[in-house]
């Protein structure tokens, strides 16, 4: 099958692994050897972009890349090698809670003097910070809720019904103009960003790629359905207070009504989603499959780990007065 002309362009490679995968997608050159996969820094730009390229074939693909390469056995083999290393690193590096309640407890307490990205943006964020944040996050928000939809066939009964209800809300409750990915595109226009899908892939830092690859990893593997649910719960639990701070940042900087609305909507929506995910999705899944508790806790812990890394990276750049974006053309308008 040929592409439809609406797919994003292949990004610039960031090293030997992503070069080899991109070349394979173009029909030229061999895929990376296992030794190369084993040698690259696992959270680095090259490794994460190579994995991102493999995953993107399951979403919207790339211009000029045959859609059937999604199920190319050679590429899947490479993807598997990348995934095994990525998963092993996450299991080794994320803080581990054996009990799910312990993993969730920290998320359900709101720090009075928080120091995260949303606190920074609320208190000190300038328009260029907000633009950078939106450009980075667009890699997820323009496919918001998509990686989580893959878990639906792997759930039963109460968990499935609740997960589908939350996803229905994410997809605008049946209305195209309320799809959360669409609301984010409207936010991007308010911020004078280009809402074209994939436009900021070259600009996104490795730490951002890690957060999106984590969702794709959990979403695409039935064996990681517990981790996917734990990940989703983490996003929904932390989103509401974070979105309130981001809405305040958008208001204070005069970012525009759609930019404010995106985060206002998430304050309310995710306060509901948190309740439904914790009690019905997790509760229902644990009724059916109590052995998944440690996997759900791992999904929570891994999400906290990758989000903390991203937050540290963005704040380190911004506190030093530096752009967090990799591409010079995107940095220019921000300063």
């Amino acid at each position: 099958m040929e592409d439809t002309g609406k797919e994003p362009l292949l990004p610039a490679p960031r090293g030997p692994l992503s070069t080899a995968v991109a070349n394979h997608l173009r029909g030229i050159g061999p895929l990376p050897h296992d030794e190369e996969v084993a040698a690259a820094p696992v959270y680095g730009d090259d490794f994460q972009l190579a994995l991102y390229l493999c995953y993107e074939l399951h979403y919207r693909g790339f211009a000029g890349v045959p859609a059937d390469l999604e199920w190319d056995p050679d590429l899947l083999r490479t993807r598997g090698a990348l995934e095994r290393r990525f998963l092993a690193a996450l299991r080794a590096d994320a803080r581990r809670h054996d009990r799910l309640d312990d993993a969730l407890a920290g998320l359900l307490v709101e720090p009075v003097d928080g120091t995260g990205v949303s606190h920074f943006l609320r208190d000190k964020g300038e328009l260029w910070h907000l633009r950078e944040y939106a450009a980075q996050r667009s890699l997820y928000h323009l496919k918001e809720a998509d990686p989580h939809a893959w878990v639906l066939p792997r759930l039963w009964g109460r968990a499935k019904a609740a997960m589908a209800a939350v996803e229905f809300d994410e997809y605008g409750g049946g209305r195209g103009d309320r799809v959360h990915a669409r609301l984010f595109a409207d936010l991007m226009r308010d911020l004078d960003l280009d809402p074209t899908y994939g436009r900021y892939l070259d600009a996104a830092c490795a730490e951002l790629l890690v957060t999106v690859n984590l969702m794709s990893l959990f979403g695409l593997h039935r064996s990681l359905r517990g981790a996917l649910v734990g990940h989703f719960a983490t996003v929904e639990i932390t989103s509401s207070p974070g979105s309130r701070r981001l809405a305040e940042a958008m208001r204070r900087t005069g970012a525009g009504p759609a930019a404010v609305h995106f985060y206002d909507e998430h304050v309310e929506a995710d306060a509901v989603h948190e309740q439904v995910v914790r009690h019905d999705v997790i509760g229902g899944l644990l009724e059916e499959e109590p052995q998944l508790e440690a996997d759900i806790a791992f999904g929570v812990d891994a999400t906290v780990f990758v989000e903390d890394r991203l937050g540290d990276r963005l704040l380190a750049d911004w506190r030093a007065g530096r752009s967090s974006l990799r591409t010079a053309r995107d940095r220019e308008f921000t300063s």
Partner: protein
Amino acid sequence: MPNSPSDTPRRVTVRRKGPLLVEGPVEVELEDGTVVSSDRFRVALCTCRRSRRFPWCDTSHRARS
């Protein structure tokens, strides 16, 4: 219509901590007579009275550290 939603009782979920969950759509009449509505599949109504988006829950009930 036996299966019409209007024939089935609307479920309200009450928990010791956290908001009241009501199956949507919902209209809420506030003290000053204002009516606000939400057409979400489920609506979280603030019970701690701390929400800045009252009557909707905004997670302000959470413990603070």
